[in-house]
């Protein structure tokens, strides 16, 4: 030790050159040590650029603009295509639109849903950027994930709000996904910060403007009809009467189930039977023990008179599937029942957990409103409210999506309508952005949301693949086409007919009445 000290003192410290070299080395080593120590003690909570794991969670939330696919292999193709399209854009020539979806969802239904939304949004982006007329500004698409149940919406919304400036120039958020409480808070926060939101599949009435004449979400424009409109369309299609209908609803509920329940109850005023509630687990994508409740409800149903043949279901899709499975095993298997429900029914198509026996039961029919259906405009005879030509634009785009330059996007499925509705939502966003800047300059953020009330009329409406999108003064769609579909024994959604909230298609002008 003493010799080492002498060596350090005499052979290193005394000779200035060696002293400086040694000091530099020591500083570098100390720096490395500190850095190493800090890295060792600090968890790396970053998943990818812009994406982190919040404390106490292994979910990766935030806004991604790279090829990071949130660890979901099925997104990879589309995310690469989006990144390729984004990278193609010249700096300064684009604005950013974020797709807010639960990318880290764990159940297959939601994942398929998100994938279709992603594909639809991308196709609209591609179409907007490759418009032969060369309209500007170009659109950059980023993915915003608030977590599978939207728990981390605050984090993601903060991040999105931070992207409105700088080189990102975020001008709109589309998607949003389901009408859940967290999503409602997120939309509330986004709109209060002046960011326009285009909801693709939100249908809850209280997640829309114009409630009692108030606009709690300034700048929000849903593409799908509200639950009330869906229920009205459903009623006009099925001729439901209070005498032969029976309501089953989610007791705790979320905005979607509550508004659907309210719409159904309005139709069933003076019903003979008390509506039957059920209580699902907090996370409605979990199975829980709700099946037992449905078994009992099925029992009750069998005790009703044979005239009662219509069941109105106000609940989410997992519970809907459980309910249908129970109905398939009903004791009174000679009774005919038709289950009517909202757009959550679109999840049933292709659901592996659906009991085949229930599906093949000829006396059990499941019909629901779909947000969109690929066959709608090809088979329906309606002359207004949409057109087959508009639907074919998307079809042809899809036709080239298998390979570059558009694709590949992975497996495409249109039955659930999510792809179509996400495509339309993105188109509406592009309309808003470009409408706010006729000269092709970068529009001001505030101007984009102000465009919604003017999206109407023959020229200004958006001719969506799902039908015309004409927005009323509150930004809600007016008399939007509601495809009614029926679940086939092969677990597919078979288009039945387009229903209209107003009872008939809108006029060509597509102007909401006063």
């Amino acid at each position, binding site marked *: 030790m003493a010799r080492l000290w002498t060596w350090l003192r005499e052979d290193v410290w*005394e*000779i200035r050159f060696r002293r400086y070299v040694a000091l530099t080395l020591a500083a570098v080593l100390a720096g490395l040590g500190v850095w190493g120590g800090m890295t060792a003690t600090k968890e790396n909570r970053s998943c990818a650029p812009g994406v982190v794991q919040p404390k106490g969670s292994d979910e990766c939330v935030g806004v991604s603009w790279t090829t990071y696919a949130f660890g979901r292999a099925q997104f990879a193709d589309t995310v690469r295509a989006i990144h390729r399209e984004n990278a193609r854009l010249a700096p300064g020539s684009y604005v950013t639109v974020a797709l807010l979806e639960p990318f880290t969802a764990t159940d297959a239904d939601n994942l398929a849903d998100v994938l279709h939304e992603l594909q639809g949004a991308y196709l609209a982006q591609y179409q907007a950027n490759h418009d032969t007329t060369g309209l500007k500004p170009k659109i950059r698409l980023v993915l915003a994930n608030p977590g599978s149940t939207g728990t981390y919406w605050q984090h993601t919304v903060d991040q999105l709000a931070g992207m409105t400036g700088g080189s990102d120039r975020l001008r709109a958020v589309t998607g949003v996904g389901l009408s859940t409480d967290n999503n409602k808070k997120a939309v509330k926060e986004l709109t209060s910060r002046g960011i326009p939101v285009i909801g693709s599949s939100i249908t809850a009435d209280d997640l829309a403007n114009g409630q009692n004449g108030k606009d709690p979400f300034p700048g929000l424009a849903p593409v799908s009809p509200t639950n009330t409109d869906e229920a009205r369309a459903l009623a006009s299609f099925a001729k439901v009467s209070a005498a032969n209908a029976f309501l089953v609803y989610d007791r705790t509920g979320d905005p979607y189930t509550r508004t659907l329940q309210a719409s159904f109850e309005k139709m069933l005023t003076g019903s003979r039977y008390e509506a039957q509630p059920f209580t699902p687990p907090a996370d409605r994508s979990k199975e829980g023990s709700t099946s037992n409740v449905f078994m009992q409800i099925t029992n009750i149903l069998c005790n009703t008179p044979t005239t009662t043949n219509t069941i109105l279901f106000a609940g989410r899709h997992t519970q809907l599937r459980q309910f249908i499975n129970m109905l398939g095993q009903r004791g009174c298997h000679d009774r005919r029942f038709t289950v009517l429900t909202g757009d959550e029914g679109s999840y049933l198509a292709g659901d592996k957990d659906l009991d085949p026996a229930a599906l093949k039961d000829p006396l059990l029919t499941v019909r629901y409103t779909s947000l969109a259906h690929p066959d709608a405009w090809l088979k329906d005879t309606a002359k207004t409210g949409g057109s087959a030509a508009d639907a074919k634009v998307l079809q042809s785009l899809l036709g080239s999506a298998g390979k570059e330059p558009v694709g590949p996007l992975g497996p495409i499925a249109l039955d659930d309508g999510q792809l179509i509705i996400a495509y339309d939502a993105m188109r509406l966003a592009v309309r808003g952005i470009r409408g706010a800047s006729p000269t092709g300059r970068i529009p001001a953020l505030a101007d984009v949301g102000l465009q919604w009330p003017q999206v109407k009329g023959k020229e200004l409406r958006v001719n969506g693949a799902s039908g015309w999108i004409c927005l009323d003064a509150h930004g809600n769609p007016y008399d939007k086409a509601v495809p009614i579909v029926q679940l086939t024994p092969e677990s597919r959604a078979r288009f039945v007919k387009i229903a209209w909230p107003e009872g008939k298609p809108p006029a060509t002008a597509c102007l909401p009445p006063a």
Partner: protein
Amino acid sequence: MHRGLHGRGALFDTDPPGLALRLVGLRPYQLRSSPYEHPKELPFVVFAGGRGLGKSAVLRELRDAYRGHTPVALIDGEERQFAGPPAERPAESWSPVGQALTTIAEQLAEPVTGAGRIGFPRLTSGLLAVAAGGWSDRDVPRIRQEAERILLLNETGSWLSGFAGRWVSKVVSKLIASLSGTGPVIAPIIEATLEAFAEGIGPAPRRLRRAATWYRDYPNAGGNPKLGLILLSSHFRAGGDSRTHAERYLVRALLADLDDAYAGVMQRSHRLGRPVVLIDNVQERAGLGLMEPVLRDRADGIADHVVFFAALRGYTHGALRNASRRTLPEVARHTGWEPGTSPSSRALLVALPPLTPDDTLHLVGGVSQGLAVPPQLPHATHRLSGGSPLGVTLLAESARQNLPQGAKSLGELLTSDVAVHEDNDGRPTYQELLDRLVPGGRLDELTVLAAAHDRDSACVLAEVQLSDDFGASGVLALEERLTEEGWTSAAGQFVGDPFLRALLLLRLHHDDPDHARWRSVHRTLIDHYGDGDQPDSARYRLHHELALGKPDLAVAHLRDTFPRTDTGSWLSSLVFIASAPYYHAHDPDGRDFGGHGGHDDRAAVALGRTDAAQQPPDSVDAVLHLRVRRLLHAVWQLTDPLVLPDPKVSDRLRFELEQLSNLRPAGNPLLWRASREWPSDALAGHPLRIPGDDDDNANGDL
């Protein structure tokens, strides 16, 4: 931990900083820097002293203390390589200074901790130009050998050492190729050398190119380095003052190269302290040829930062007339040196003191660890040797080797064999000492003359005892040589240094088995002083009588003069007479023989054990006679440097002096003080001083 030499702390100490540390800026034996005492102008330190004072040991120790930490070179002006040119080399192209510069540069070039080799391009080109003066196309092998040695001074080693070796052989081939069949040699060689340097492909090319232009400042070179080197070479060959001038330039080249190695931020951040050049025997040609140019350049304002330590035999030299003079203890804290205008004032002459009794004690104790050393031996060693480091070291070595064999007195240690190196056969210690103290002939003559007391008596001895061709001139030559070599002179002794004299007398005694020469020398001197009318002749005569082992005359003289002489001079006569060497007879094998069984009977006489057998002459005071006899033997025993002082004898001495003081009321105080001081002085190994006569006779009369 004690390292280094005893009694040289003023030079080697680190706390407080010693002279070496203050000048070099580095702690001896350690790689730690410290502040300089003379940050700008340095004194040229010259250690002065006679033979055996440890000058060479000091220089060797300095080299060991700094080797590997800072560039250090040690040359000895007396080395054979500086005596004359090697065979085949013409004298016109060789000088001791050139040889010394080569040797010094080779040593300084060695890498030290933190820095690599030093290159000497300026010196290389200068030496090559000088050497070329002795080259012709006939002896290519010699040229190759000489050129390689000089060019290797330029090697800076580092990673490219292999490359440097190739560079040297390339340049050598180039030089040899430039030798034309018959024409002049020097100019082409110089041209080829400068060309090789300017090509800038050698080690440290930029340095080389800068160095190649250094000689353009040579007087009359007119800015042309090649012309400068040609002039240098011709000056050198011309000899005399011209050569001195050229040599001065070569020395300056060495110092410039050294300064170059310390120039620049990078260089300084690699090196600590200053380079050290050690020159032993600076009075020789090689040494003077280095010292004088350095002193002159420094006086002319051409500064360098080399620490010079030189060793000068003797205490004065013509080249050091105005040098500041100090003793080593005086420079322990600071030198107080201020440069004057003359070259010699740039030197600082530091006289090395003899070892102190304490140093002697430590040294003897250190050498003979684990031996039962007689307690008086270290002090007695110091008394005999006068603190001469060589004497103390060899005596201590002899003690280590001979004490276990039963040697007791210093005389026995001197006559016993000592093996200086492990593989050597032993030789008598006194011979070993004399070989080193008086090398270079005339030892036999000096041995005889050691018995003399002054020039007259020496001449008488030379006339009677020595060959005719020696004569009075030989005496004078020897006297001058003793002075030159720094031996102290003393009144009343031809050989002033007591240690040298004791050794010489011992040699005289042991010269022949029956001591005939010893006796005849003393007889000659007794005769010389017998008919003299000098007042002191009696004491000289009795001194020699006593040396021949005849105390009766001395006793009679002292007894008779006691009542009527001045007490002080009586005591001084007593001490002088008793300083006679006591060498009893012994047979050829070294065994004692003689009337008293061969043993030293002085103690017995002094203690009064032989009084009964004594028959004092009838007409005298028997008590006084016996008392003086005891006193004489006591002083003789106690002041004999070759035996250990006997405590019982010293007690007796006190008693006898007290008794005497009662007999002489007038001289009472002197005798009384002597009775107090002498016994303790004798036991401590100090010379006996005559009370009231403080300084003069302290050394001289012993």
